[in-house]
């Protein structure tokens, strides 16, 4: 039951949403699905932190 809640989106879909979140505001339902997925998924949580690191790296490249 819990798995069904946290896996309304797959990892593939979650990575796509995480990338899009950097470029535009996700819809309310997308944000909820993504948040639930991240609660349960270690791999995608890592991916999310890696996106943040890459963004930070690019900003240091610039300044």
């Amino acid at each position: 039951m819990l798995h069904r809640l946290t896996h309304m989106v797959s990892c593939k879909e979650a990575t796509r949403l995480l990338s899009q979140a950097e470029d535009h505001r996700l819809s309310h339902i997308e944000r909820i699905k993504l948040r639930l997925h991240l609660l349960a998924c270690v791999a995608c949580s890592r991916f999310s932190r890696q996106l943040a690191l890459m963004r930070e790296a690019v900003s240091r490249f610039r300044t």
Partner: protein
Amino acid sequence: MPYYSRLDPAEGTALDASDFTVELDRHRRYLLRVAQLQLRDAAAAEDVVQETLVAALSAREGFTGRSSVKTWLTGILKHKIVDAIRQKQRQPVVAASFDEETDLDDFDPLFKDNGAWQAPPADWGDPENALSRQEFMSVMEMCLERLPPNTARVFVMREVLELETEEICKELTITANNLWVILYRARMSLRECLERNWFSDPAHA
């Protein structure tokens, strides 16, 4: 004392043009790398960097020191690159080539049929360990250069030059959806490249 504080108009000690030229020249290599990644054309990159430096020199009164010289130059370069893209688009268009790079299927091997990771991302450890290392920044640059040309161009416009997504779509005449796919692709490739070439080394994680 940081260089820019000597330029603070309040102090009334703005550098003369020749000192300023020396300072600008220090950033030339960085500007060229960014322009080259974006335009993929050495001569065109030289041109926009030259224009950027000339514009910076003539606008040096306008430099307030609120940002670093490098950030300020990046801002000018952004406009020059947009100009260059506009000029290019008056010539025969390359837009069709974007199609090849907006195919999401390429990333299917990263995921199983049910959408789960084929090989989940590794633990990258403390971000500061990587970010504070010059070698890491070089690896990142190499990874950027390895991206497919149009993918790199879009990524540089978005993340390095910080153009708004609407502006990128307008300048490159691509749809928002295409743009997201290209940026997704860029980030996935960059992530894989960094993991393979930096974080897989136990000394780096």
